[in-house]
């Protein structure tokens, strides 16, 4: 492919090729501090290519390709090329990663212990992790937490934080402008702006942490904290994992160890400040 970049995010490395310059230039700027693959060989390839050859020039739209494909991955507008690249990387991880239990969860660390937050899109897990990452916690990832079956530790996958709609304004008040990508309006997920994790998140991305608290945040409800039993936590984590079934017994053992060893709470909140107050209290009490 004409334009390409290689980079490593936590344990996974990517080669991203594009028929266009701009998405790669955006990635190069936002991932400037990230290392190269250890031996120069990438785990995954992501390709951004024209849906038809001539569409590279006429009303271009991007088709996301790679080692692992979803049949219904729809073409996207070239103006959303950076989003296409990020979605392509997520897709490769979700469909192809086998070394860890992949949890669709955000994760932050303090004092060597990890807070894992999982929930559906719109739950606020990503924005909360990004905010905590600017307030003394180490951001380990806003999209995936990697649970290692052998040790029970959580490993980081600190890719760009994907901020949607109101979350963009929230984080623009917390992080310097230079760490943001372009504002992409009217994507299939609404307005999106990417935020590069801070220097510490990148420098320490190979450091794992033992999970100490599991939260199920839910944005847009009156503040409330509810205990979550081990059975419910297990069920919700299997639903949040893209490779639980594939990993078989290793996945079962890792998740049962997780839910029997880590306290779990559901938190409802109507503002980031409320949620962070709850998290501080729960962390002091339980972690």
């Amino acid at each position: 492919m004409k334009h390409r970049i290689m980079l490593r995010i936590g344990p996974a490395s990517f080669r991203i090729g594009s028929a266009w310059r701009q998405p790669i230039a955006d990635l190069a700027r936002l991932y400037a501090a990230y290392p190269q693959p250890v031996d120069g060989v990438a785990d995954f390839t992501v390709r951004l290519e024209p849906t038809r050859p001539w569409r590279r020039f006429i009303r271009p739209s991007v088709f996301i390709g790679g080692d692992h494909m979803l049949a219904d991955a729809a073409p996207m507008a070239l103006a959303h090329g950076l989003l296409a690249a990020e979605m392509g990387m997520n897709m490769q991880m979700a469909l192809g990663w086998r070394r860890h239990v992949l949890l669709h969860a955000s994760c932050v660390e303090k004092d060597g212990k990890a807070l894992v937050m999982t929930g559906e899109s719109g739950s606020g897990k990503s924005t909360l992790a990004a905010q905590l990452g600017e307030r003394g916690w180490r951001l380990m990832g806003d999209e995936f937490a990697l649970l290692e079956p052998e040790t029970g530790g959580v490993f980081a996958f600190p890719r760009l934080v994907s901020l949607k709609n109101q979350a963009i304004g929230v984080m623009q008040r917390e992080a310097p402008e230079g760490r943001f990508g372009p504002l992409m309006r009217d994507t299939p997920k609404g307005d999106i702006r990417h935020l590069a994790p801070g220097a510490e998140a990148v420098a320490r991305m190979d450091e794992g942490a033992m999970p100490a608290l599991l939260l199920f945040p839910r944005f847009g409800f009156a503040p409330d904290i509810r205990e979550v039993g081990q059975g419910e936590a297990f069920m919700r984590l299997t639903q949040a994992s893209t490779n639980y079934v594939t990993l078989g017994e290793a996945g079962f053992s890792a998740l049962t160890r997780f839910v029997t060893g880590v306290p779990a709470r559901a938190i409802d909140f109507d503002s980031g400040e409320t949620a962070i107050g709850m998290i501080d209290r729960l962390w002091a009490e339980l972690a």
Partner: protein
Amino acid sequence: MAESRYRAEQGADIIVQPLDDVTLIYHRRSGQTHIVVSPVPEILAALAEGEADVPAILTRLARDYDLDDPGEARAGIAAHLDELVSLGLVTRI
């Protein structure tokens, strides 16, 4: 008609993991995880002592638990065994 006899999957084929509110059963041969509640773990434990028919399972359970109404318990055990057979965790012999 003779009572059906049942045999549980061998201990090596399943992992039983009690949690605080439910019990997980991982079935190695199918790779499936089942989430069950009482009395299913108790029935499987009774059957782990060896193949048995419903009255024998009832006798084993009555050793460790108070069964209010044996008739009701017997019907309940039979219904749970049917479910366990359909999941592949128990074989009807």
